[in-house]
């Protein structure tokens, strides 16, 4: 499977198991028999890995364990002591209106961003692939948001969506449509943020789809034509869609894990408002932890966040193992 066909031979001196790189399959590969067991190997190997191991323990492993522990305490930053409260924090979540708003909004955001950004990206990729003109140009244009500073671009969107002076509403006024307060009304705010999220993610997905499309052998399209697929539509369903299967699954999971981590736009544009209507998971973690300094509670929410992310990854590896490998 080649999600990244761009990674051509020119840039890859030896055949690399790209599938592993691109799919990040957490299944630990069987050790390759590299039968070079000289006595010096182990010592030098540990020496080489030592800096990484130390940094790993300090920056990832210990903090991870600490979060696990914190989640079961009532620790508040600056407090001299704390108590173990078991699942108290998780029980609190059930009654916390801002937390439930946060979960709900995050889910809505993901369910808005993922299908739209995937569908639009697939459509655009097929359109780009259908002709020869300006391939690199389109790709660059749609990819631009991925490399742009989110905070800055969110500010630009804020202007575009401004209820009174924004060009979007100026346009709507011209055609006589309603002019919502995009980021200011609790009805529209999550849709507006979702739209910006789609804008941010389309280019990324598009590039993955383009790579998937170029990896489809031309001969299959020729064969489908001989077999009687007359329209682009039937060729799409006979060849393109099934051949994109592996890419599609990958894109879905990537987009979900990316959009569940939405933070920058919310923090910049709405601060979760109005009235918690755009409160999202990461911002709740940030707010509870670094605003109210309720570290225990924030750690518990962090665990919920972690479990969701891990769940998505689990689905991914399960499905990859089972279905989408055509060989």
């Amino acid at each position: 499977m080649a999600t990244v066909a761009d990674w051509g031979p020119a840039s890859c001196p030896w055949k690399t198991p790209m599938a592993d790189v691109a799919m990040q399959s957490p299944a630990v590969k069987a050790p390759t028999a590299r039968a070079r067991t000289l006595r010096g190997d182990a010592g030098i190997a540990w020496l080489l890995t030592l800096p990484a191991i130390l940094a790993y323990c300090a920056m990832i492993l210990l903090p991870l364990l600490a979060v696990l522990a914190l989640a079961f305490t009532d620790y508040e930053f600056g407090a001299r002591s704390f108590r173990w409260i078991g699942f108290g924090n998780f029980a609190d979540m059930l009654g916390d209106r801002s937390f439930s708003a946060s979960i709900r909004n995050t889910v809505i955001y993901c369910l808005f961003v993922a299908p739209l950004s995937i569908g639009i990206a697939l459509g655009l990729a097929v359109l780009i692939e259908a002709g020869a003109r300006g391939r690199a140009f389109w790709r660059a244009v749609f990819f631009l948001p991925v490399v742009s500073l989110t905070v800055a671009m969110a500010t630009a969107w804020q202007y575009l969506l401004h209820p009174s002076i924004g060009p979007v509403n100026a346009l709507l006024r011209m055609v006589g449509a309603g002019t919502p307060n995009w980021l200011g009304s609790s009805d529209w705010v999550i849709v507006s943020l979702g739209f910006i999220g789609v804008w941010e993610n389309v280019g990324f997905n598009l590039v993955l789809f383009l790579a998937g499309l170029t990896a489809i052998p031309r001969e299959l399209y020729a064969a489908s034509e001989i077999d009687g697929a007359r329209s682009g539509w039937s060729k799409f369903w006979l060849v393109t869609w099934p051949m994109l299967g592996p890419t599609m699954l990958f894109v879905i999971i990537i987009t979900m894990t990316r959009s569940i981590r939405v933070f920058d736009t919310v923090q910049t544009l709405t601060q979760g408002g109005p009235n918690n209507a755009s409160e999202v998971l990461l911002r709740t973690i940030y707010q509870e932890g670094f605003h109210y300094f309720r570290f225990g509670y924030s750690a518990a929410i962090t665990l919920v966040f972690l479990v969701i992310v891990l769940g998505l990854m689990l689905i991914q590896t399960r499905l990859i193992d089972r279905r989408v490998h055509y060989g």
Partner: protein
Amino acid sequence: MQSRPLILDLPRLALLSLAAFVVLAPYIWMVAVSVKPQDEVFKASLSLIPQKWALVENYGKVLATIPIWTYIVNGLIVCFGILFFQILFAVPAAYALAKLNFRGRELVFGFVMLGLLVPYQTTALPLYLGIHQLGLLNSYTALIAPFTCSVFAIFLFRQFFRAIPDDLINAARIDGMGEFSIVWRVVLPNALPAATAFAIFSVVAHWNDLFWPLIVIQKGDLYTPAMGILAFRSVEAGEDYGALMAAALLVTAPLVLAFLLAQRRFIEGITMTGLKG
């Protein structure tokens, strides 16, 4: 099929152009508004060209109000500092995991895979506590240290190093190189595409990051570009769009320009490595 006449290609091009316009809209208005005087901005016209140019006023105001160059320099220091340590730590470890046989290798690699599953936001609380304990809040260290161990870099480099022929490494050993020289003089140069891709991915990710700097930095002179924009918004109460767009443009420009100069490399780097975003 390749050379379809232009006329038949028009519907396709029209659709793509429409989508491109939507994608480019914020950039277009960012540039336009950044040279418009405030009264014109408030007229809410759709025109892009200002009647009176306010380039000097808007950009002058940005430069006068916030030390934007300092933010950009901070961004560069942080990004390249992180990258430096990530490479320094990950490359030797990846080499050992890929090419050396030692007891515990599978265990180490297992931990690498575990690390891949954990978004960095998860560990923010304890890291903050630790950095606070050490009195390192508001420092470059606070911005750089948490990202020095990139499991993703280890994973990626390991995949690439595995593809390097053993004979090449054995030849280097016979030529008298030690393992350290092999890592830096033979293995890394041969994995330069992977290193470039990772470098681009890492720089883009940390240049754009807001979550972590927001947590550990309160002092203005250590703001990263993303934080600088946030600060400027609050100073300006957010309504002087001309200056705001000018500031946004200034901090967006470096990466966008780099992207336009090396599109292929950027796209390769970010999509290949983009699973850790």
